[in-house]
């Protein structure tokens, strides 16, 4: 599946494992259940590890272990399930997670801007055309009214830094 990082098609070095899959060499992404059950053996592998959270699994469940993961993949089981937007905010703003926050599942271009503003920085898309649409999708609205997990400055800050009109 195409992966977008920093606005371009990126090579995906990670393998996302289902719970019944055998472990493979190289960086892997596992479910929360697998992490909880096989924690010691997963850590003993000494290869980069990623965690996949369903939309009913908050990153609050793994706060103490977050530094062990290079990637946290948040699932969108459908377009309308918006829980992961809050999870991404928590990962970035609250827990200071510096690794990759990846959007997986139902991920469309019309969500890119919202996702990026909440702290996602990697996007698995089903539709290759979405890669081309990236630039437009994240720039078509240039004004933000609220602080987010991204670098955009909200209108309030811009208004306040503007020189006073005489």
């Amino acid at each position, binding site marked *: 599946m195409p992966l977008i990082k920093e606005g371009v098609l990126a090579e995906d070095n990670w393998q996302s494992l289902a719970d019944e899959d055998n472990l493979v060499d190289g960086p892997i992404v596992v479910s929360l259940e697998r992490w909880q059950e096989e924690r010691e053996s997963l850590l003993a592998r000494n290869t980069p590890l990623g965690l996949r959270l369903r939309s009913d699994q908050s990153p609050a469940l793994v706060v103490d272990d977050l530094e062990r993961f290079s990637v946290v993949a948040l699932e969108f089981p459908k*377009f309308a399930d918006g829980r992961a937007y809050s999870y991404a905010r928590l990962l970035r703003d609250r827990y200071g997670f510096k690794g990759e926050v990846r959007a997986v599942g139902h991920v469309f271009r019309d969500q890119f801007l*919202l996702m990026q*503003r909440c702290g996602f920085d990697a996007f698995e898309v089903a539709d290759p055309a979405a890669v081309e649409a990236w630039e437009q999708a994240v720039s078509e609205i240039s004004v933000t009214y609220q602080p987010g997990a991204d670098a955009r400055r909200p209108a309030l800050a811009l208004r306040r830094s503007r020189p006073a009109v005489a």
Partner: protein
Amino acid sequence: MYRYDEFDHTLVSERVHQFRDQVERRLAGELTEDQFKPLRLMNGLYLQLHAYMLRVAVPYGTLSSTQMRKLAFVARRYDKGYGHFTTRQNIQFNWPKLEETPDILAELAEVEMHAIQTSGNCIRNTTSDQFAGAAADEIEDPRVYCEIIRQWSTLHPEFTFLPRKFKIAVTGADHDRAAVRVHDIGLQMCRNEAGEVGFEVIVGGGLGRTPVIGQTIREFLPKQHLLSYLEAILRVYNQLGRRDNLYKARIKILVRSEGIESFSRMVEEEWSHIKDSALQLPLDEIARIENYFAAPRYEHLDDNVREFEVKRFEDREFASWVRTNVTAHKQPGYAVATISLKPVGKPPGDASAWQMDAVADLAESYSFSEIRVTHEQNLVLAHVKKADLYALWLGLRDLELATPNAGLLSDMIACPGLDYCNLANARSIPVAQRISERFSDLERQHDIGALKIKISGCINACGHHHVGHIGLLGVDKKGEEFYQITLGGSADENTAIGKIVGPAFSYDDVVGAVEDIVDTYLEYRTDGEEFNDTYRRVGLAPFKEKLYAAH
């Protein structure tokens, strides 16, 4: 009123371009209807029975004359010459074409209007007191905070896909005209012991399938923490609100199942982390927005206006209109005028393009070019000199907008119902029309006094039937329209959910049933009692008796 600066202008015009692109992708087949539907809904575009419907936001119900003229233009150019004002103080156009909606939005953007978040599972238009800025019992103008909330909630990246829609109302007055206790969040401005102004925060109210009266989650919230506290509530709700059942997805269900104490603890815990973040409102920002809502340049007048009193004495019809449609203003010599959109026998809340244009003219002549839309589907001119009331009334009378029925029986709320709406089970508008015709004698209505009838065509309760003194809910019984009647509801500071009186009435019988209820009330009421006073004193029994005894 608020005026856009370059940031607001840019955002709204970019949003129009974005939507134009989405429409083009749908028409070109790049988006399926399933993908497009949530995108169009987030811009207020529904597909109803006969056509698309575009709901345009009227933030907290305040419009300029210029904006009203633009709405008239849209009604004429892109629709069928009329619009429908809604219980969220917005306006709906019932016949726009999909291809033309981007053009409509571009027209609206020219006058600082949009359709952003008028639908979808996001934060909807924040509503307020239609008498804001004019009411004598007001602590502060609540629209300042509505505008602050409007900006914060617009395209909020985290809260665009909530479990369900989310409605916020703010009032600054003791008498609640904004129904804050039946909103997902209600904000009641208040003072703390030190005399500082802030908000009592009420959460988890709502109508719909499960009507619930909101509970106070915080007695006093200082102003500068408004947005961080709202964000904390929304963040808890976004994560924990139910997503498995459409009818259990509103925040009221979460608050109920958690209990207010537990829910409050979760919010406070979340809030403790973000309270002092960039969400904190600087006092100069509050002051900046307050400037937009500064009082208009009133003349210094005596409150006793002789020519007004003379006209009221001479002209009985005018006096009757003043009695119901004119409300006291905080500024001496001024008054608040309610323009009834409920002429006898007409659909509640509809206005034609020529009426909109003419109201814009009247607002320019008599009320600082500003118009309010009320959640009861009327319009208001908030700052009219008493000396001008007679001329205003004559102007309104020519427009068929001077019906002296504000707050009376025929001042009903009705949702569009089965005549327009895809979700409805039964018609609402013709029921309202028939009730209004049955009680067309305005003298009789004045004798009956204040009475709120609210009609919904389905359980989603867009017509607020739960909080009507008399509420009618349309249901489908084996293909026939029936109406379940509730009594004793109220949306004000004494919020109450109406009780079902008994088996539902058919489309043909429901008007007679309403008349029986009114007659019973008149029979039992004692001096000075309003409908709910009598109802609370005598209970359901006499009404049941009258309604069902013959059967």
